[in-house]
């Protein structure tokens, strides 16, 4: 079926395009920009006047909670939330129950995602069996079953020998490994950035060294083994410097950051509001600003939602007893655009970090509207004012400090392979 998206402002940083033009889609793919190819006289026309036409977003961290924790979310509900947020491609972590350490679980997730017909879902496979940090997982089988990379998530690998061997093995087969740098003996029991705010409020701190010591170890092992590496959810200023140095020395590594670590600092914890309990924790304003600098400098190439839906009761408790995480995939784009309001980042940079940036980290063919790509795109109303309400939210999660807040800019429709999967009614 042929489709002509007419008169929208097409913005695609991967091609350096920002102009009002037409987009032509045929047989799931983008076939032309600007001038109609032959045979498009009869095409369906969609008037996008006044709207922005953007590549579908690529989110490197969306917990779907299925299998195993469907009281928090499911592939269907979180998939719907993702496309409502304009996310057309997502990576889900291996910490499901059972864990993604067998091809069967990886296949189950992808089959259910296909049935749901929502975003393109790519699972991460466990780096070690059961994420227990002892025995290597069947990495090649997992990759063959559709896992795009391997990760031990935030679960510790206490033995450096095990980690080194896992990386050597992954390197043997040219597999990508995703690191969540965390020295668990330092972060254990902590719930907040170790600093003045946590000290004043008596919240057990997580020092920045929990991240940087692990990051240093990981970087040394990446250098030694030559494994392809991506560093996920950086939170400290020093980590940005360390990744920058690693890149400068020729190491081929990439990094991402959760959007809330760019927008919030530990000052918000003075209310003891469990909605702000996240891991890695919200850190100091200096850390936050350095992460933003890291994006400007290209050290960090992806911004993710780090979507972690929870049932209501998971957050109704004293701060330390709440479960960590926010469920923000639905508002990822307007949230990330708040980084522009402060004059920190331009839209092109923000959009790159939500599209071609993350796609590049994982080598995914996504996040671009170039001719020949699958037609994953969104129609965005940059001036729409709307309230993300509890009643109309798509995620099953109850946990976001942004619920019932007003946003400027709204995803009006989402298309995957040329098919509309979401539209504001």
């Amino acid at each position, binding site marked *: 079926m042929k489709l002509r998206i007419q008169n929208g402002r097409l913005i695609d940083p991967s091609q350096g395009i920002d102009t009002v033009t037409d987009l032509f889609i045929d047989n799931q793919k983008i076939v032309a920009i600007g001038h109609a190819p032959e045979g498009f006289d009869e095409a369906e026309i969609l008037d996008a006047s006044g709207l922005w036409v953007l590549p579908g977003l690529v989110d490197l961290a969306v917990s779907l909670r299925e299998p195993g924790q469907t009281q928090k979310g499911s592939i269907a509900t979180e998939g719907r939330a993702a496309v409502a947020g304009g996310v057309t491609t997502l990576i889900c972590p291996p910490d499901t129950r059972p864990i993604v350490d067998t091809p069967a679980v990886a296949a189950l997730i992808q089959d259910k995602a296909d049935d749901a017909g929502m975003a393109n879902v790519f699972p991460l496979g466990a780096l070690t069996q059961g994420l227990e940090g002892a025995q290597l997982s069947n990495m090649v089988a997992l990759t063959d079953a559709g896992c795009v990379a391997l990760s031990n998530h935030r679960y510790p690998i206490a033995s450096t020998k095990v980690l080194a061997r896992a990386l050597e093995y992954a390197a043997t087969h040219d597999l990508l490994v995703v690191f969540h740098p965390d020295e668990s003996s330092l972060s254990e029991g902590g719930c907040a950035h170790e600093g*003045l705010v946590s*000290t*004043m409020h*008596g*919240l057990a701190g997580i020092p920045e060294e929990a991240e940087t010591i692990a990051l240093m170890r990981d970087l040394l092992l990446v250098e030694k083994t030559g494994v392809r590496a991506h560093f996920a959810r950086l939170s400290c200023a020093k980590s940005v410097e360390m990744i920058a140095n690693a890149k400068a020395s020729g190491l081929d590594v990439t990094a991402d950051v959760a959007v809330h670590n760019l927008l919030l600092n530990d000052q918000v914890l003075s209310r*003891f*509001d469990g909605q702000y309990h996240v891991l890695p924790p919200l850190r100091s304003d200096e850390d936050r600003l350095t992460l933003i600098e890291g994006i400007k400098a290209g050290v960090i190439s992806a911004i993710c939602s780090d979507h972690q839906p929870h049932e209501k*009761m998971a957050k109704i408790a*004293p*701060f330390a007893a709440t479960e960590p995480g926010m469920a923000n995939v639905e508002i990822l784009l307007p949230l990330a655009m708040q980084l522009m309001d402060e004059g920190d980042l331009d839209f092109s940079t923000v959009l790159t970090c939500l599209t071609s940036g993350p796609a590049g980290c994982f080598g995914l063919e996504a996040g671009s509207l170039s001719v020949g790509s699958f037609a994953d795109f969104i129609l965005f109303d940059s001036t729409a004012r709307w309230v993300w309400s509890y009643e109309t939210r798509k995620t099953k999660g109850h946990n976001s400090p942004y619920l019932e807040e007003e946003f400027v800019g709204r995803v009006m429709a989402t298309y995957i392979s040329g098919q509309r999967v979401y539209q504001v009614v």
Partner: protein
Amino acid sequence: MMRSEPRAVQLNEHGQLKHFLTLDGLDKTLLTEILDRAESFLSMGEQSVKKVPLLRGKTVVNLFFENSTRTRTTFELAAKRLSADVINLNIETSATSKGESLLDTLKNLEAMQSDMFIVRHSDSGSAHFIAEHCTPNIAIINAGDGRHAHPTQAMLDMLTIRRHKGGFEGLKVAIVGDILHSRVARSQLQALTTLGVSEVRLVGPKTLVPSFFAEMGATICHDLEAGLKDVDVIVMLRLQKERMKGALLPSESEFYRLYGLTVETLAWAKPDAIVMHPGPINRGVEISSEVADGKQSVILDQVTNGIAVRMAVMSMAMSGQLQSADSSAAGEEK
């Protein structure tokens, strides 16, 4: 729901206490009012009839998720002297039990139409959590939440200091020991700073005295002699045995050797310095028996003052609740 800061939650629209969660954000006038009111209750304690009817007909629930005999008993006595009916609940919490049970417990107690909860819980911020999740007309008094705050303990310490020293101006105060885990030290630091002492020193090894306390207005000392030099008030904190297991200290004996308060080390302070301890004391771990029982020790005065301070805070919070209810009822009529 966006939560508010504890300091905002605990005051009604007239700026009066309706809960007592933390000393953070309370001004000198309010702290002085608590002390003045406590003084008036103190003299009452010496009379043969020790009751006043300020909380008559009110139900006070002592809700202790963490064990404590002394604090619970003084709260109970304070409530009874205010003529309230008192229920004691000791709820053991296991490490795995989460907010569900806490919230359910609260809802059940609410349904019994209580008027005031005295809460102790091992999580920082729990008193604030309870104040935000209970029906608004129940006064919440924080009897210690995690490492965060123990405001009635700090105020009874302030009363003890004022009664012995006449005031706060110009005083130098040393707090010695496990500051990191101490809700008492945090609340004391806030009270002392607000009441205008000239210096608060926090004394202990780096493992127990994080540097961030300097940003809260304290002077940090790692050496006991420097810490005690010329001070008017010494507060010794209890050292928990778990701290040795957590690799924060080598041993009790080494701690005592470096930071223990003995007749010899007490001599570094002013000759008329008073010695306080929130209790229960570990003799021979943080303080020697000679000092604990000596004439500079005011540890037992603290206990007596504790009842008066708790009476003051409970009566103020209850009246703040009623004033708040009155004005909201009046607002509805308009």
